[in-house]
């Protein structure tokens, strides 16, 4: 799904939910036995909370997402926040990536992600950032454990054992996602040019 579709889907989804709830409330309101001023108050309060909800949703945009990374992406930059045992902060890795399509073309808008901290991912990202500083473009892949071949699964198990040793403070859903998701970086591949159409 390209960017426009994803954003449109998100916005349409929110709007559709509001419309459905508004219709349900109004229809039930019409058929209810509440006094008229209670019904009117309900309509006004609901409208105000639609507005407040929209403002709240707008304030969520831009912050890092905990969704799964796209399977194939260009890494723009990363920010690594080390764990702090004194404050019990488990650490975090923020990545700013832009999804690549099947032809290795960036899809237009970078997205902000947050992943759980792991030393191996940190080491990989540090090397990737060194390449970016040298002026090279860096691509990445993120695949789930069940999508791997046997050879890749064996390698992933070895990586997993290594990450177990690297585990810092903090368990939870994000560490679970990091362990199931294998992230690797490589030089940006060439764009796949379409075949020339015959005249």
């Amino acid at each position, binding site marked *: 799904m390209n960017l426009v579709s*994803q*954003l449109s*889907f*998100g*916005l*349409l*989804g*929110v709007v559709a*939910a*509001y419309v*459905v*709830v508004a219709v*349900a*409330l109004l229809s*039930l*309101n019409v*058929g*209810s*036995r*509440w006094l008229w001023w209670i019904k009117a108050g309900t309509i006004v*309060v*609901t409208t105000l*909370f639609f507005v*407040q*909800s929209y*403002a*709240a*949703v*707008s*304030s*969520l*945009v*831009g*912050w*890092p*997402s*905990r*969704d799964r990374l796209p399977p194939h992406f260009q890494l*723009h*930059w990363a*920010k690594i*926040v*080390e764990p*702090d045992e*004194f*404050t019990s*902060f488990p*650490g*975090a890795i*923020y990545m*700013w990536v*832009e999804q690549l399509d099947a032809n290795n073309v960036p899809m237009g*808008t*970078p*997205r*902000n*992600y*947050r992943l759980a901290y792991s030393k191996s991912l940190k080491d990989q990202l540090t090397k990737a950032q060194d390449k*970016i*500083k040298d002026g090279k473009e860096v691509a990445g892949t993120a695949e789930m454990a069940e999508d791997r071949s046997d050879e890749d699964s064996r390698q992933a198990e070895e990586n997993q054992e290594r990450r177990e040793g690297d585990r810092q403070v903090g368990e939870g859903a994000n560490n679970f996602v990091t362990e199931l998701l294998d992230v690797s970086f490589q030089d940006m591949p060439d764009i796949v040019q379409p075949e020339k159409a015959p005249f």
Partner: protein
Amino acid sequence: MDEPSQLTLGLLGVVTAYILLAVLLLSVNVASRWLWWIKGVAIVATTLFFVQSYASVTGLIGWPTKDQLPGRFEFLWASVAEPNKFYNIDGSVFMWIVALGAGDEPLGEPRAFRVPYTLALSEQIVSAQALMRQGKAVAGYARLIDVAASSADALLDAQARGAQRVNALRPENFTERAVEVLLEVVPGLNDRPGGPAPMANPGAGPAGGVIPPAGARRPGPGAAPIR
């Protein structure tokens, strides 16, 4: 406001709205004269749409916002989408930044912004990225400035400095408000720990050099920091 609290407030706002709507729906449903199966379908459909709405909202997180940049921020990286007259695309600058406090301490998680493209801003970004490749840390200001719209030269000059039009013309004082972005090198900024446990350094102020866009001048006396 501390940036993680803003995210938490946003989530709480959405949850509160959902709870209130659910309570209203149920109370009105109870008192209505619809057949019981219609009431049941209304409850089920609404519940499903709450779930779908939540999924849609989470799909919006992470994408760049068009909100105003914080007044002071650490510049992490940027991506410039050039304008294209052939396809009638205005162009955009995507910036990844961390808001900074009064002492240049990081105020939480990085946030992605989308600001309108200007040549001056894109040139600043190219220079800033070159400095970051050398290991220097870059911070920035985003100021709201009033530009006398009666003076076309003043408006062009502000745009040349990277100002982006924010509001439409306000006829009461014939000015436009614009956001001007200035990037500068801040030695030692990237040595400070980030995340939720910032190290406050109240005595420090910005140091290092400002990265000027081509042909830029310092903002005039009307400049004011964004609160």
